[in-house]
C-alpha cells in the first residue's frame, strides 16, 4: 500500500525534491498550505520541530516541514533563521553593503517530520560564497549564492534537481525513517 506524507509547502521545487527522495519507497508526497508560526529563535531545529508539531496538530497525518536560512560566517550567522523576513525587508542590495566580494556563507535547511508518535529533525548544509552579482527586485539570496566548486547558483542547482541544502536534509530524513522502519 502506498503511504502518503504531506509536505507543508506550496513551492513546486520543494515538492519535486521530496518526491524524488521518497519515490523508492512508493511514498506519495503531497503539498499542503498551512499558516505555521515560526519562532524567533537562533536554533533552526527548534523552529522546524515547532512547525512540525503545529502542522501535525492541524492535520493528524504524517507531515514534513522545512525551515531554511543563509548564515554569513563573518556576521556570526546573520541573517540565519530570520533570513526570509530580513531578505524581504532589508533586501539583497543592502546585504551586499555588509559583506566583501565572495563572502563565505552557508545555506542550511532543517527538515522535521511528525506522525503523532514520532518526531524527527535533520539538517542539510551547503557551503559556498555570496557573489555580488546584479540583482532585481525578484532576486532571492539563493540566486547570488554559489556552492563551493559550482559555477551555478544554488537556485539553478535546486531547480535542475541537482542538489540543495533541503535535499540533503530530506535524504537524511528518508534514511532515518527507513532505519526506524517507519517507511
Amino acid at each position: 500500500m502506498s503511504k502518503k506524507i504531506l509536505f507543508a509547502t506550496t513551492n513546486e521545487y520543494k515538492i519535486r525534491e521530496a518526491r524524488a527522495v521518497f519515490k523508492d519507497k512508493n511514498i506519495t508526497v503531497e503539498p499542503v498550505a498551512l499558516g505555521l508560526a515560526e519562532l524567533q529563535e537562533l536554533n533552526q531545529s527548534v523552529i522546524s520541530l515547532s512547525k512540525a508539531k503545529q502542522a501535525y496538530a492541524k492535520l493528524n497525518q504524517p507531515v514534513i516541514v522545512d525551515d531554511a536560512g543563509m548564515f554569513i560566517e563573518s556576521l556570526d550567522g546573520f541573517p540565519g533563521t530570520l533570513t526570509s523576513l530580513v531578505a524581504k525587508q532589508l533586501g539583497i542590495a543592502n546585504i551586499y553593503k555588509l559583506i566583501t566580494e565572495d563572502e563565505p556563507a552557508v545555506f542550511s535547511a532543517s527538515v522535521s517530520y511528525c506522525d503523532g508518535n514520532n518526531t524527527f529533525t535533520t539538517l542539510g548544509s551547503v557551503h559556498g560564497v555570496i557573489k555580488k552579482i546584479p540583482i532585481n527586485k525578484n532576486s532571492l539570496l539563493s540566486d547570488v549564492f554559489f556552492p563551493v566548486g559550482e559555477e551555478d547558483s544554488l537556485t539553478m542547482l535546486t531547480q535542475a534537481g541537482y542538489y540543495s541544502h533541503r535535499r540533503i536534509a530530506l535524504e537524511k530524513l528518508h534514511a532515518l525513517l527507513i532505519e526506524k522502519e517507519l517507511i
Partner: protein
Amino acid sequence: MKNQISYITTNDYKFKLAAAAFAGLKRHDLKLVQGMVETPEIQAKTVEEVAAFSAIWAAKQLGHPVITSDVGFMINCLNGFPGPFIKFINNWLRPNDIMSIMRDKQDRTASFVGAFAYATPKGKVKVFTAITTGKIIDTQNIADAGWTIDAVFIPDGQSMTLAEMNESDKNDVWSSNIWQEVVEYVDNV
C-alpha cells in the same frame, strides 16, 4: 483567579509601571498580577503581530485575560527593518554596519515601537502602540558601545543618540501614556 489580568513580563520595573497605572482602574473586581510564563515569540514584520500572538497564546494557557508587550525598531526606508528582530540585530550588526546600509539613504526617519496586547482566552485581542520617532545619524565612524541601535538613533527633540543620553533624558524619551489607554480599555470591555 477569574478576576485576574496577567501582565506577562519578567521585568519587575515594567510591571511596576503597569501596576501604577492599573491602580487607577475603576473596576475594583479586577486585579493586575505579574505573569512569569514563557510565551512563544513569532517571526513577524511588526511587534504588534508578535505581541498579539503571545497574548492570545498566554490567555489560552492561563484561562484569564493577559497583557504582553514587545518592543521593536523600524527604519522607514528599509521597510521597517529590523522590526521585532531588534535584539538579534543588536548582536549581529555593529553601528558601522547600520551606517553602511544607510550611506546613500535620504529618508533617515526611524522609530521605536512598543506594542502592548490585551487578549482574552477566547482569542479576542486589542493592541496598543507607543511610538518614539527619531532619525538615524549620519556619521563616518561610530565606536561600538552597548546596543547597536541606541548608538545610531537620535530621538526627535533631542541632540544626542540614545547611547549618549543620561538615564533621566532617556526616561523623558520613553514617557508615554500608553498604560492609561490600556486601563481605559480594560475599564470598558
